[in-house]
């Protein structure tokens, strides 16, 4: 199945992409997706925050086809 993935701020610059469509296996979690991304891109990134369909999720959250997944650093607004 496919999910769309967004990156923001310093992570967006590190990955060099804003959005991409990624194939994942049935049963994949947001964390397994994250692991495969940093392995493929060969990058290191601490304290990543994860959202699915614009809601924060835990790393063990299971993905569904068509999900919008977002990875980003700690937020610094306000």
């Amino acid at each position, binding site marked *: 199945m496919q999910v769309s993935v967004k990156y*923001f701020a310093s992570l967006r610059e590190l990955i060099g992409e804003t959005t991409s469509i990624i194939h994942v296996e049935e049963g994949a979690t947001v964390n397994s997706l994250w692991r495969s991304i940093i392995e493929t891109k060969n990058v290191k990134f601490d304290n990543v925050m994860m959202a699915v369909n614009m809601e924060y999720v835990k790393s063990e959250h299971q993905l569904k086809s068509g999900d919008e997944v*977002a990875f980003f650093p700690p937020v610094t607004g306000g």
Partner: protein
Amino acid sequence: MLVEIRKKSFNAYAEIQYYLDSLDIAGKYGATSNFVGSMRDFNKNKKVTHMTLEHYPGMTEKHLETIAKESIEKWKLLDVLILHRIGNINVGEDIVLVATWSSHRKDAFESCRAIMEQLKSGAPFWKKEETSAGDIWVEKNTPGY
């Protein structure tokens, strides 16, 4: 209740007055608490000349609306206004505005501060500062309590 992300600079006090004028709560509220966050020309002893604020279109608005709605319920507020800048920000400009209207001051004070803390810790915004030491993504917010 109004939550807005603004690309252009705004005047916090004109915005509060404009929003208040659109409400029909005169005589009902006894207490208004406002917080305005503005851009400083320094951060951790570095000179800052400019800032860019990135957000996550869709999620940021949704997240702030949830914070506002939950605060209205928790503190029985009469109204809430949240404005937040994105894009290019100059020194001295306002970045964030939170206003809460309540019958009593305890609820106004507590809700305004709690909204700011929730916004700071959870709303998807990211600051990149142009400093004397180069362009730097702000890594984390300072604690608020």
